[in-house]
């Protein structure tokens, strides 16, 4: 039973570029949440997808967008990258939207130069 998987593991981009990160949830999970974790800080909630719709959003600009596919996998897109977008991007999956444990993936480490 595979856990949460994310790709790529590492990524280097330059300012102004766009990036797409991918997440496959744990088997049986239908909800995906995305978090940004800057170095030395706790994860910050970006948004959550359930039934292919964005259900909740944190305090992130519209440059951050996402998508969920019928197979429950998800993508996080970031446009017009800034240096401050350099962080570990974590995906977490769970069952439904009202409870249950979130399982985090290994993350994608993004460096913006």
């Amino acid at each position, binding site marked *: 039973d595979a856990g949460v998987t994310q790709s790529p593991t590492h990524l280097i981009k330059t300012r102004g570029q766009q990036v797409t990160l991918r997440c496959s949830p744990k088997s049986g999970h239908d*909800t995906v*949440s995305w978090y940004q974790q800057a170095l030395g*800080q*706790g*994860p*910050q*909630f970006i948004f*959550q997808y*359930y039934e292919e719709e964005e*259900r*909740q959003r*944190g*305090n992130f600009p519209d440059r951050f967008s996402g998508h969920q596919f019928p197979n429950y996998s998800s993508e996080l897109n970031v446009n017009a990258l800034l240096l401050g977008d350099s962080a570990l991007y*974590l995906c*977490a999956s*769970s069952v439904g*939207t*009202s409870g*249950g*444990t*979130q*399982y*985090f*993936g*290994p*993350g994608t480490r993004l460096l913006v130069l």
Partner: protein
Amino acid sequence: GQQVMQIPQYQHVQEGEDFTTYCNSSTTLSNIQWYKQRPGGHPVFLIQLVKSGEVKKQKRLTFQFGEAKKNSSLHITATQTTDVGTYFCAVKRGYQKVTFGTGTKLQVIP
């Protein structure tokens, strides 16, 4: 937005010593979760507390939720090198939006 503060920010202990991290909020919390993140790793869910005064144990780890539901603690008895990492408290709001605390980084000296 509602924030949860953790103290201490860093803690170095000798292997075998006890360790405690505290999580504090200025407002009443509906729940508190605890996560562990190993160096270079991702957060791993440890436990969730929802009841006032609740105490739960997992082997050498003891989790407590304050009577007023404004604070929580994680106590590790007789630390081991495998306990190294950052411990986060977190609050689940709404669906699955989890707001993480500032974290306590634990270093265990062999």
